[in-house]
């Protein structure tokens, strides 16, 4: 398309506004995480101040810093998030990868209805499943366990992986597999040696996206997890604490919680934009 706006200065001006709109709150939290308590509550808000690492030290329970129960608990929330997100993605891969491949490659009657059924689970408000599970999990001793949480995380991870992987598999020409099989490769051989490597970038994007969606989930941990299993999204709320809001800790925790995601996301950015749209956009 030819440029609608011929003046480049206007285009860049508008782009700057969009960038500021997106970045300003993130930047503010970033600055806040390096502020001392006094600087944080200063009115008017300070844009220039002497940076301190106190919030990060407290967060990681480094001695000498103002050690708080909430601060050192952060590491365990962080660990919980890692276990839950990784575990959920692995389980979703085991369950979903064969399904995605079958839907992409084979012709069978139930194909489209089945594919749509998988996707339709994304439309279920999580709270509909969680409320009865709160009772069921306590009876089955799954309440406040990693396994219990990983199982319900499938509600997010599984439909996402199946739909994204399906579209990536469909893009690999079937001739690749046929040629390999006429060359004497077994079905498994052609799948593992040809299809998987070709699907790898898309797979990486799907895995990253599923990981991020799990990492960012809040309601499952809030209602089905206890202190020992709750993820970082729930843990962060504890800094809004009962008596005093721990702004500095909250800001530092936010930065620590999102940096790994940003790095992961940037690595597969190109594929992810398409993945986000579930293959609707070719």
């Amino acid at each position, binding site marked *: *398309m030819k*440029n*609608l*706006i011929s003046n*480049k200065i206007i285009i*860049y001006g508008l*782009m700057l506004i969009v960038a500021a709109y*997106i970045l300003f*709150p*993130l930047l503010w939290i970033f600055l*806040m995480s390096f502020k001392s308590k006094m600087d944080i*509550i200063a*009115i*008017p*808000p300070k844009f220039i101040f002497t940076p301190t690492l106190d919030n990060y030290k407290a967060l990681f329970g480094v001695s000498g810093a103002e050690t708080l129960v909430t601060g050192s608990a952060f590491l365990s929330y962080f660990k919980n998030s890692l276990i839950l997100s990784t575990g959920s993605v692995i389980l979703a891969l*085991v*369950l979903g990868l064969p399904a995605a491949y*079958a*839907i992409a*490659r*084979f*012709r*069978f009657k139930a194909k*489209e209805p089945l594919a749509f*059924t*998988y996707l*339709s689970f*994304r*439309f279920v*408000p999580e*709270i*509909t*499943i969680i*409320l*009865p599970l*709160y*009772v069921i999990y306590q009876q089955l001793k799954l309440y406040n366990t990693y396994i219990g949480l990983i*199982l319900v995380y*499938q509600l997010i991870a599984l439909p996402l992986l199946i739909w994204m992987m399906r579209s990536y598999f*469909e893009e690999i*020409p*079937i001739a690749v597999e046929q040629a390999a099989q006429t060359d004497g490769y077994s079905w498994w051989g052609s799948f593992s040696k040809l299809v998987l490597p070709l699907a790898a970038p898309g797979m990486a994007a799907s895995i990253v996206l599923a990981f*991020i969606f799990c990492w*960012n989930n*809040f309601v499952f941990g809030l209602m089905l997890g206890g202190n020992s299993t709750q993820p970082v*999204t729930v843990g*962060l709320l504890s800094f*809004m604490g009962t008596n005093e809001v721990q702004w500095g800790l*909250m*800001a530092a925790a*936010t930065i620590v919680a*999102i940096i790994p995601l940003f790095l992961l*996301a*940037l690595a597969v950015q190109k594929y992810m934009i398409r993945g*986000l*749209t*579930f293959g*609707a*956009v*070719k």
Partner: protein
Amino acid sequence: MAVTSVTQSTPAAPPERKRRNWLPLIMTLPATLAMIGILYPFGIAVYYSFTDIRIVSPNAYKFVGLQNYIRMVQNPNFWESLGNTLFFAIVALIFELVLGFLIALLLSQDVKGVGIMRALLLLPLMLAPVIAGLMWKTMLSPGGPINHLLNLGPYPWLAVPWSARASVIFIEVWISTPFVALVLLSGLQSMPKEPFEAAQVDGASFGFVFRKLMLPMLSPFILIVLLFRVVDVMKLFDIIFATTGGGPMQITTTIPILAYKEVFRSYLLGSAIAKVLVLWLINYIVSFWLAGKWRQETASVG
């Protein structure tokens, strides 16, 4: 459904595969079983909604028929929350679509730096909604930077009814507009150039090009956006939980927030489930309708 599935299906599978009909079924079995596993608590939910079950004594409950539903429709709090849910959903979606389209249009311009902008747009998407909520709560606090920049004094954004609503919508729009923009941008970039060049040669106005060319070509993308956004915005919970907690008064209470409070403050599980089932039903109808439309569009385009 059968007709669209034929037209939509992928390049013909090799004939020898067609005979092995059990293979795809076996391969999809684990995922199908997992989904059935999810259906189980859903079934229990429907059952519980007809009982007086309380989470403090989950084993002692009795069947009460439609009582939960009857009390629900008589409860003004329910209608207010349902109204809030729909109000947030509709207003937020309108803003997201308009803003998202404008940003997509801007980033479809052929200038340097759009790549960086696209990476920037991913940032809010990577942020957990609850964290984004906390972040904006900080920004909007009476002594926070927003009041400072707007020179408003210590205005309590989240404690005044109209601005609490506006803030929740604003935060939701901040989080999700980038997603809308990225999808619509892919749509804009997938369009053929010729009709637009022809329109330019003929001196057509932007309004004409927008209505007659862009909108029809973008419609599958708009539908996909709606399909995913409608569902998410209808179950708005995280942002509200992190910012207003549903207040002041009931003004930002959505159905999920109402149900949460009912369960964890009044322990009335059956009654809360009845309310979220209503939400599910609305979601289901809307998303099914949208998905059907989307299939029609994609099937006719090819």
